[in-house]
């Protein structure tokens, strides 16, 4: 390292450019990751930057670490409560789904690129796993909230399918370099990697969670504790011969679902790190690619990308999910949102390092797949969610949200909202929040920087900043109260759920009587049970059943039971 200053300047300038680009893409709605790729390409050997960078070894190291951080962060964010509807489909997609996608895509790639079949499969495995981080960033920007079954399935799938794809790639590389590998060996390797991965992740996550609770650290150091333990766990699991990626994901999940000191702060810092990791990978990729080499290959590699999107992914979804009774709209959506992100890029470096034949061609093919997936699928997700009606009404998040210091249970939160012009709460007494679900109490109101005491005589005005103590159950309603009416971005709740709400335990007979329709089933059944029986699957918020002339929509679910149902009148 002769010139540290040049390196600092380069890295800093790249990061700075990326940040400026981020604020721009938010307005443009283009997938952010493409911007990093572009920045990397411009800085690279074919662009004006002219940087010659082809250190695959370094890319491999950075890529692995980056992936570990991304998966750890993904695990921290995964809510175990969503397992009720999403674990089975996500597990199926993450194991069989990946294998099917990899197999079909691989066969097609071998045929079109004229490669031996096992190298085709290797390429198929490289592009086999999906990336939900990209999907969720896109959806958040466009204000679309997915129904729980679809959203959680995609999220958990993308966390769990990376270890599977990585496993396949490693095994296939071993087969390619050291001759053949028997299916029995593969099965044994699978059990070993995943078994050790899950055990290490589970035990490690539990230990870290205990440790974080015991240690007294300033808030700013908690994320580092998590990061350090995540990386250590990653390394240790790999040394033991397990799937390190699975281990960090599992550990993240356990830590994130247990009480955690300084939770919001830690999650925010790790989110930033995961973001940096993702951006860094795409930057590196941009630097590594040589567009002048890729362009002539496009007629061969582009069909692979299209085949994956239009044939392989839909086919694997159709083979995995129908037994779980997904609606056809949901199947179409899940098929289309097989977005490929950072993982294929890292995986594409594996064969290069192992010295597998045609590795460079595979790298370019993976690049083509990722870029076309981000461009084509990425730009159409929000639109498709609306068209296929897999979205549910969302609510605006608070401006800021903190848990109480030193409290184990995260029940109470301190949240801040700004009163929007035309919001429901304008002109209402600041103490009268009229929350039906959960608890909320106004602690203070700031008007033009002045603190006003929350007395019942104080009427809220637009632009007031309000600090509240609230629990999680109250956040949807608080979001609605403080936001402008019909902000347009979010799906309107009344148009979605209907005019009235019925209790889940209302008797079907009474409901049918008031709707004036024929009795659809046992009149003594509760409305909740009848809806579950009609759907033949675990219900999620937003699912609809017709009853005579009215449409019933599941509105709230608590502990797996439907507690509130929207009733929409005809016309």
């Amino acid at each position: 390292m002769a010139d540290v200053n040049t390196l600092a300047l380069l890295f800093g300038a790249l990061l700075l450019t990326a940040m400026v680009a981020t604020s721009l893409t938010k307005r443009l709605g283009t997938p952010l990751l493409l911007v990093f790729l572009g920045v990397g390409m411009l800085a690279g050997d074919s662009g004006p930057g002219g940087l010659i960078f082809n250190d695959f070894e370094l890319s491999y190291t950075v890529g692995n670490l980056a992936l570990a951080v991304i998966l750890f962060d993904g695990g921290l964010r995964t809510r175990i409560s969503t397992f009720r509807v999403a674990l089975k489909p996500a597990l199926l997609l993450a194991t069989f789904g990946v294998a099917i996608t990899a197999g079909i895509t691989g066969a097609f790639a071998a045929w079109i690129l004229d490669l031996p079949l096992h190298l085709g499969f290797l390429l198929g495995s490289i592009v086999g796993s999906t990336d939900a981080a990209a999907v969720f960033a896109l959806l958040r920007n466009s204000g679309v909230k997915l129904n729980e079954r679809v959203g959680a399935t995609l999220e958990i799938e993308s966390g769990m399918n990376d270890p599977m794809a990585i496993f396949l790639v490693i095994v296939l590389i071993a087969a390619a370099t050291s001759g053949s590998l028997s299916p029995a060996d593969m099965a044994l390797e699978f059990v070993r990697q995943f078994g050790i991965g899950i055990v290490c992740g589970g035990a490690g996550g539990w230990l870290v969670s205990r440790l974080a609770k015991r240690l007294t650290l300033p808030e700013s150091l908690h994320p580092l504790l998590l990061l350090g333990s995540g990386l250590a766990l990653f390394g240790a699991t790999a040394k033991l011969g397990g799937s390190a990626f699975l281990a960090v994901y599992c550990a993240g999940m356990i830590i994130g679902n247990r009480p955690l000191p300084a939770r919001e702060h830690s999650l925010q810092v790790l989110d930033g790190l995961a973001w940096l990791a993702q951006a860094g990978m795409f930057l590196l990729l941009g630097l590594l690619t040589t567009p002048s080499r890729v362009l002539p290959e496009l007629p061969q590699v582009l069909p692979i990308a299209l085949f994956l999107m239009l044939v392989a992914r839909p086919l694997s979804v159709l083979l995995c999910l129908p037994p779980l009774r997904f609606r056809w709209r949901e199947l179409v959506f899940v098929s289309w949102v097989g977005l490929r992100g950072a993982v294929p890029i890292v995986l594409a470096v594996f064969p290069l390092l192992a010295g597998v034949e045609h590795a460079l061609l595979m790298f370019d093919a993976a690049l083509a797949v990722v870029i076309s997936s981000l461009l084509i699928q990425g730009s159409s997700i929000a639109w498709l969610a609306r068209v296929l009606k897999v979205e549910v009404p969302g609510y605006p998040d608070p401006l800021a949200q903190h848990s109480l210091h030193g409290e184990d249970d995260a029940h109470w939160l301190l949240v801040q909202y700004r009163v929007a012009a035309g919001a429901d709460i304008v002109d209402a007494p600041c103490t009268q929040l009229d929350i039906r679900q959960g608890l909320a109490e106004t602690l203070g109101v700031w008007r033009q920087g002045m603190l006003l005491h929350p007395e019942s005589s104080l009427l809220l005005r637009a632009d007031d900043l309000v600090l509240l103590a609230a629990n999680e159950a109250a956040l949807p309603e608080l979001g609605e109260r403080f936001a402008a009416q019909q902000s347009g971005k979010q799906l309107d709740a009344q148009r979605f759920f209907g005019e009235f709400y019925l209790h889940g335990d209302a008797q079907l007979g009474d409901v049918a009587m008031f709707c004036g329709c024929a009795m659809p089933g046992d009149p003594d059944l509760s409305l909740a049970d009848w809806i579950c029986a009609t759907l033949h699957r675990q219900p999620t918020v937003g699912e609809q059943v017709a009853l005579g002339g009215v449409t019933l929509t599941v509105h709230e679910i608590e502990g797996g039971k439907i507690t509130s149902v929207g009733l929409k009148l005809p016309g």
Partner: protein
Amino acid sequence: MSLLTQILPPANIFLDMDVGSKKRVFEQIGIVFENSHGIARSVIFDSLFAREKLGSTGLGQGVAIPHGRIKGLKDATGAFVRLREPIPYDAPDGKPVNLIFVLLVPANATDLHLQILSELAQLFSDKRLREELAAASEPAEAWKLISLWEPYSGEAV
């Protein structure tokens, strides 16, 4: 001419009724229809209350449309009540209710009453109409507002 004109007799408009609870409103309404239709007030009260037990008929924005099916009633009928003080109603937006339209339909009614409910929900989603109803000083004025209401575009909130 809307469905609503046919079901709302001009006499069934009650402005600034001074009652403090849902229960008391339904009792008053029971008396009104007992006198005009000869149906026992308890029948009306029980039917309205049975419906509330399934889930509040509050629409939000201070409006509720309690409704019930009544044996022996020939045609759908209604009453409009404006309360002096808003009462708690467990509405979806949590706001107390001061504008109430009671709808009674025959026990064997088809889904015509769903159409009426739907029209009422549309009517009360009109902010201007709600404000005019809140300001009306004579029952005849309120009756006219409801009967002559036509949906305009883009003003619902």
